[in-house]
């Protein structure tokens, strides 16, 4: 590295990009870690049914299992394309 390189802009900080990407994916994977195995299948099948009536995106369905004391609540939200309102069942 000589004086010219030194004066040029420093290389891009790719470690920061790596950290941000990891932060997001790890958080996402952790949240789905203790959920039942059937969730991805349920999601796909629900999506197929909904798509018979409304054209929604592949990631329009959000399914979560939340623990509320002794109960487990299956929370399902579908983002509809035009109205942008969530229907919660």
């Amino acid at each position, binding site marked *: 590295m000589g004086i010219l390189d030194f004066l040029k802009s420093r290389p891009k900080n790719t470690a920061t990009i790596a950290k941000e990407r990891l*932060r997001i*994916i790890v958080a996402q994977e952790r949240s789905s870690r203790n959920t039942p195995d059937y969730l991805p299948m349920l999601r796909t099948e629900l999506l197929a049914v909904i798509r018979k009536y409304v054209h929604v995106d592949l990631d329009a369905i959000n399914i979560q299992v939340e623990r509320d004391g002794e109960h487990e609540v299956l929370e399902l939200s579908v983002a509809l394309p035009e109205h942008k309102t969530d229907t919660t069942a």
Partner: protein
Amino acid sequence: MTETIVVTSGKGGVGKTTTSASLATGLAAQGKKVAVIDFDVGLRNLDLIMGCERRVVYDFVNVIHQEATLKQALIRDKRHENLFVLAASQTRDKDALTQEGVQRVLEELGKEGFDYIVCDSPAGIEKGASLAMYFADRALVVVNPEVSSVRDSDRILGLLASKTRKGESGQGGVPAHLLLTRYNPVRVESGQMLGIKDVEEVLGLPVIGVIPEHESVLMASNQGVPVILDEGSLAGQAYVDAIARLLGESRPMRFIDAPKKGLFKRMFGS
């Protein structure tokens, strides 16, 4: 009391076997009676790293299937008489391991008065890896400062918490430590590599040791001598520190800063 420590990672090639060999040797050097077991059935390599590849007669699978006794299969280390290697089978596949068999071998080692059992896990999350961690009291998760290794480590941390005896019996899973290997301080400083804090923040666990990327690791494996025995090696010294911390000592991290460059060097050449 026998303590079983699993060395695991999810991803391959991060330094599990190198770490297992150095951990077992380091513990033995402190006078502990240690057994190190290769769980990578079909792809054994711990024997090579420990330098006992030509002395393997019976292996772990033979003992599990009662084709040999544990005493026959344990290979005494050439350098430490209180250190023993249990090689993996090279001809069988991973299904040759059974949970009952593994448990029986671990219990037998306990009865033989071993202080530590180091389980060298194969990569992946298949049977060999899950059995290596199942009975562990503690885990050393080897992670490289690199995206795929960090993500896989998180997956392994999840499995340690749930798919282990300690996880299934409601004891909160296997307590885990992170060991950061192949660390390059110069690249971290220039923003090209994840730093210690980055990895700790993403995984939510403190790092117990940092092993710098160093030529001595390859030189050690070439010769079949665990790198911890290379006293002049930075990686070897970092392993000594990490093991001391594992045993409860507090030691400052070394070899984690890039060497300081003078102004002249910074301006006119590297």
